């Protein structure tokens, strides 16, 4: 549990056993090859206290025995003033206290008070119940807490509905329980607090479902007279207030001035050495070496990180190692153990290590947690399971085996080390992949810049329609609901849609209700738009704990013959069926030494512009378009080398057509000509179907499209697999122009391409840095910069000199507007200089030829 008690470690002066400065010298001789690429010190933060009695009734304050951290006090004051709050502070900053104390305070005034706590997962729910019960017990308030989800038996459910002050559930469960709201009448009538925990995790498609489910919940509560306030807790994100509002539909006061203390932290960027420098014993790379580690001669992070971790643990720095998969944690322990047993190395002796992941079962996990807390374990290799929530006791170090995908997770994981004001030693070991390399080259990205923005977008109409149907089934929907349900115009359209299809009846004036007897809630899948989710089954198994997947993902990654890695296990897809009422894919366990990758060929048509803006001579557009993605073929690749074993295999899936949101850039014709001419000599011999003189230019815009998608997670919380792109020399609406698209890979859109449109310059700037700074030094890029394994054209052509020329023209031409649709008055013939792309920005004399008015 997070504790506000000042840390006695500091008082006792028992400092960390190994500091960042000592790390290199302490590393075993012959193993240190200058891996420390960078080292940063994050100074300690003094705690800010507020006497509990200032914000809590004396009765509670006296029992609490400790003072509050300032952000907790600030949040409680805001709640008292009737505001909603979004608490966005560091790991272990006592966010649970905020709502725990608020509930206790409300309970003293009214013992009938009810609160709804929504957690992302079932596992977290039970941990949190324990923590809350402990707090309430300590405070001497008789607040009852119940976990209500699929694992709760019917009798307990009924008791919880009737009696529990605090009901803990998850979003998918809430979607279902809203249907039976009459059984919750008393709960809804007295519901005064809704808590959304880990709010930052609700983004993309599941975020938009969560947002509608929370709106439906509020509507039902209001019907019975409830008027809940919201508490959202979130890791650090760039837009906590906006995100809270998007999720709940209500404004929230942002509490982000962290009053909890932290010790001095040293962060090391530890770059795996090249294989030439690697010790001979690491030749066995084995499992876990996917494409991320496929690089020209660099030691994989999956080998290097466990050794560094073992070294820390052996040096009395008890540490966590964060891995990407369950199996990865097991392998890491094996590798670390091997390392510790190597006779030639000094790091020997009694070092207790364990793996921790959700595959371990509750009892085994409890045991590991206990051993970690009481200090009998020196190190734990874990998945994201230990990123949040669970008490990890006194941990001095943390090692990241690869970048976790977002800055929030990066800090959340590292934040598990150095409890209270204790010092901590942290290390980031990058894999050979785009994001990891980018962060290695640009540490300021994690250290300074603005955190990613969480995207919850409500514009997706297929998802909206589903929730309108659910809402009408729960209670008649009327005009008064319009503000919460998309505004009157959109709601009218949705209602008319439903009336015409026969799903809805009535009008907004009188009340619209659902016309069928089935439960539209059943059709909602948090992971798909529009209810066409595929069940994932395991052959011969009663049940298989895998969330349903959307059609796009099924076609792409779960076609027949595809290998699937799930929670560290390997499966193959036996069957993909969608002719029945419930589409599904069936997997079987396999042990093969290859993985599969489908290749995507995309065409885009029927574009419809919703907004346009000029950037220099470029026109940027956003809107809707019809995207046809064909995943016709797939290849088998060797697990250890990544080499293609077999290509051109048939997936058997039909083309996937979706109407979705996209953004695209139109390249000014003069620039296109100039860059084409300047790079006409570049030839990619594998691209026979493309006219040779276009290889350079098309390779350029193709590279921009890849790189932009690769860096988008630096700006937005997005899984790059949810984005797609296309570079073309014939735009659908203007065949005389070339350009590149980025689209949302879900029917109806996700709002990502719209945000990219808004931040187009920032994203292209990062894309440029990615290609220019990559250590590969190759014009056609490498897997860590320009290459995308899904590329339907097999990453050909890609040509970064042309790409940077186009990007520079985009970024530098901002002040030079061009008349709409005008061709440039003339083309500057002196465009040849763009083929010489400098590494640094000597940009002034590289004015692109199209910047002409």
């Amino acid at each position: 549990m997070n504790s506000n008690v000042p840390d006695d470690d500091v008082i006792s002066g028992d400092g960390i056993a190994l500091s960042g400065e000592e790390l290199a010298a302490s590393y075993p001789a012959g193993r240190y090859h200058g891996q420390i690429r960078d080292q940063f010190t994050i100074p300690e933060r003094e705690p800010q206290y507020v006497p509990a009695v200032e914000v809590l009734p004396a009765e509670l304050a006296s029992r609490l025995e400790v003072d509050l951290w300032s952000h907790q006090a600030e949040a409680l004051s805001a709640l008292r003033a009737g505001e909603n709050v979004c608490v966005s502070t560091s790991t272990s900053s006592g966010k649970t206290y905020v709502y725990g104390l608020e509930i206790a305070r409300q309970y003293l005034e009214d013992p009938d008070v009810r609160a709804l706590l929504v957690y992302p997962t079932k596992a977290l729910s039970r941990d949190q119940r324990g923590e809350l019960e402990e707090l309430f017990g300590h405070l001497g308030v008789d607040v009852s807490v119940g976990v209500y989800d699929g694992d709760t038996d019917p009798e307990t459910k009924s008791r919880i509905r009737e009696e529990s002050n605090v009901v803990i559930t998850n979003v998918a469960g809430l979607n279902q329980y809203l249907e039976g709201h009459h059984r919750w009448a008393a709960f809804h009538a007295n519901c005064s607090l809704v808590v959304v925990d880990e709010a930052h995790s609700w983004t993309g498609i599941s975020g938009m479902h969560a947002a509608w489910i929370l709106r439906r919940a509020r509507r039902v509560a209001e019907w019975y007279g409830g008027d809940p306030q919201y508490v959202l807790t979130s890791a650090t994100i760039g837009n906590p207030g906006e995100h809270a509002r998007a999720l709940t539909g209500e404004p929230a006061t942002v509490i982000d001035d962290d009053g909890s203390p932290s010790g001095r932290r040293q962060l090391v960027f530890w770059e795996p050495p090249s294989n030439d420098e690697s010790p001979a014993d690491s030749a066995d790379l084995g499992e876990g070496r996917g494409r991320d580690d496929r690089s020209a001669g660099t030691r994989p992070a999956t080998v290097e990180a466990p050794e560094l971790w073992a070294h820390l643990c052996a040096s009395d720095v008890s540490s966590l190692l964060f891995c990407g998969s369950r199996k990865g944690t097991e392998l890491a322990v094996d590798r670390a153990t091997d390392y510790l047993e190597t006779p030639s190395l000094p790091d020997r002796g009694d070092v207790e290590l364990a793996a921790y992941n959700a595959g371990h079962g509750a009892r085994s996990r409890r045991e590991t947690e206990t051993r970690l807390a009481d200090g009998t374990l020196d190190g734990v290799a874990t998945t994201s399971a230990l990123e949040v929530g669970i008490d990890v006791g006194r941990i001095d170090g943390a090692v990241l085996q690869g970048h976790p995908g977002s800055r929030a997770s990066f800090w959340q994981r590292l934040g598990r080390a150095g409890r209270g004001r204790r010092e901590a030693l942290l290390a980031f070991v990058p894999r050979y992949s785009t994001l990891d390399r980018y962060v290695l080259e640009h540490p300021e990205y994690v250290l300074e810049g603005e955190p990613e923005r969480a995207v919850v977008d409500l514009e997706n109409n297929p998802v909206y329609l589903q929730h309108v149907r659910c809402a009408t089934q729960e209670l008649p929907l009327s005009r008064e609901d319009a503000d919460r349900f998309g505004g009157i115009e959109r709601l009218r359209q949705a209602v008319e849609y439903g009336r015409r299809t026969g799903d809805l009846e009535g009008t907004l004036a009188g009340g619209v209700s659902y016309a069928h007897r089935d439960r539209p809630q059943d059709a909602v899948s948090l992971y798909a738009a529009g209810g066409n989710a595929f069940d994932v089954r395991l052959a011969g198994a009663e049940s298989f704990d895998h969330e349903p997947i959307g059609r796009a993902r099924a076609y792409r990654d779960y076609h027949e013959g595809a290998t699937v890695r799930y929670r560290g296990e390997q499966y193959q897809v036996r069957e993909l069926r969608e002719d029945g009422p419930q589409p599904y894919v069936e997997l079987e366990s396999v042990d093969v030494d290859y993985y599969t990758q489908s290749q995507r060929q995309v065409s885009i048509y029927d574009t419809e512009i919703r907004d346009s803006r000029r950037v220099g001579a470029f026109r940027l557009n956003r809107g809707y378009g019809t995207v046809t993605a064909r995943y016709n073929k797939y290849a088998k690749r060797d697990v250890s080398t990544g080499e293609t074993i077999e290509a051109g295999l048939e997936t058997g899936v039909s083309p996937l057509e979706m109407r979705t949101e996209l953004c695209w850039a139109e390249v000014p014709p003069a620039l296109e000509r100039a860059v084409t001419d300047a790079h006409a000599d570049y030839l990619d011999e594998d691209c026979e179907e493309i006219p040779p003189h276009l290889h350079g230019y098309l390779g350029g815009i193709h590279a921009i499209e890849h790189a932009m998608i690769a860096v988008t997670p630096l700006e937005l919380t997005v899984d790059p697999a949810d984005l797609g792109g296309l570079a073309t020399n014939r735009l659908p609406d203007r065949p005389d122009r070339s350009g590149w698209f980025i689209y949302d890979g879900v029917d109806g859109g996700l709002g990502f391409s719209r945000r990219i449109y808004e931040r187009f310059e920032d994203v292209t700037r990062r894309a440029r840095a990615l290609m220019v700074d990559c250590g590969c030094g190759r014009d056609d890029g490498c897997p860590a910069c320009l290459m995308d394994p899904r590329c339907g054209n097999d990453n050909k052509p890609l040509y970064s000199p042309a790409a940077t020329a186009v990007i520079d023209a985009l970024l530098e031409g901002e002040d030079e507007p061009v008349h709409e649709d005008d061709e440039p008055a003339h083309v500057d013939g002196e465009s040849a200089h763009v083929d010489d792309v400098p590494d640094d920005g000597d940009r002034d004399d590289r004015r692109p030829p199209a910047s002409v008015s």
Partner: protein
Amino acid sequence: MTERGADLLALGCDALEYADEPALCDLLEYADPDLVYVLWEGADVRVASRIRRAFDGPVIAPGGSATCRTETVAGNSVVFADSIELLENRASADVPPDADYVVCEDLAPTTDRVALEVELEGLGTIADYQRESATETVFCTGSFPASYDHVWGRELEEGSVRLPLRGLGPIRRSGAAELARLRLGADGSVTVSSVPADRFGLGALSGVGPTTAERLRNRGYDSRRAVADASVADLRSIRGIGESTASAIQRSARALEQSRVVRRTDDPVSPVGCDPLFVDVETDGLHPTVIPLIGVFDPNRRKYVDFVDSDPSRTDPGTATRAFVDWLAATYDEPVLAAWNGYEFDFLHLERFVARYAPEYREYWTEHVSTVDPYDWAIRRDNAVLPGRTNRLEDVARALGCERAADAEAVDGRTFATRVRRLLEAPDADDPCRSAGKSNRSADEPSRCADETRLECEPRIDWERARRYCEADVRELAAVYDALAEADPPADSDSRSAAGGAGESEDERTDATTQTGLTDFDS
């Protein structure tokens, strides 16, 4: 009193794939249609020809060249057009201009979920047809389920035109598909009842699917009567039928063939010592926004009371609920209410409406009013097997011999609900939802009184008839309840198998066993 109308049974071949000749005859006898229409979706010539052989009347099935056929039943003309082109080229295709009903499966929706748009293919053609028709035609298509009831509109030069469209397809429900029987009324009103496709012939028996039916027939049990007369031991000797299945088959055969309730337990229907009040609520749909009519029958006082809000409004949808609970609290201290499927509908919505619109009675409702649901007791809790092809109240009551008055029969809950909804919608001709969808003439001619216009277009609610319908429902419920309470408790299972079943009396209602049951019930 209106004319009876034409009964059309819409059949899907896929649902009847396993139906044999006797089952088809049974189905047709039960549904008793004037016309049989075979849906295009999943059409199968073999099934269609079986239907033709089994039905002594017009069967309209797809196949051959596109033609147009007209059937006239009880003064209603129904045109079946195999393609929309036939309607377009009316003159050459010999399509009558003023049909009451036009069935055409080319009328199908195209939807765009991203743009939130739905269009109807063929809309222009039927608008032309409607414009030239002297009376209002109702259009029907199998592209929608039979529950579909939407009035499309189309702007023409001379004003907008109303295009009522009904579905004929199977109704979506868990389990087997429900076939639709539509009563096509002379005034354009359509009443839909549905029939589960698998509840005919031997298939009507619980636990009997196509395989078991085949095995029963092979052993000489070719009718339900024969099964009802068989002993459990005989049935058990058939491969694949175990003890409990044999009993279940026999019980359901007896319930159906002897038109009586067959009890499986001797648990009482309602809590000991109570006389329930029978209740039915009429609403504007499955997910009601208003409860305008509540009927209550007290058998002890032999008194029927109803609470009607004949001017239901969206501002106060709880008027009837308030009057009802007000009366209830004044009259009964600890009432027990009984409603058919009340746990899933009536009680659920009454409770919600009391909570919202009569909050002063919320405590009375939760603390003092208890409820029973005879349907739940019999079916979900497995206490009894009911006669009737379905377990819907009207089916059970009909099987038990309750006849309802003809004018009460002409209304049903769903029709009532639709009319209430349209009544609520009517003053909102300015609502764009409405003008787009219904294209009521008043939308284009604001000077006309919306209400007047509505009268021209929509059948008005006949509140007296609705009340009679509600009363008939409640009285049927009381009768079914009595039949449940009075049915014989099951004999000891041993003695039953020993008795062999065949000689059991159908008329054991008055013997001592029943008395014991009632004593248990009373104590």
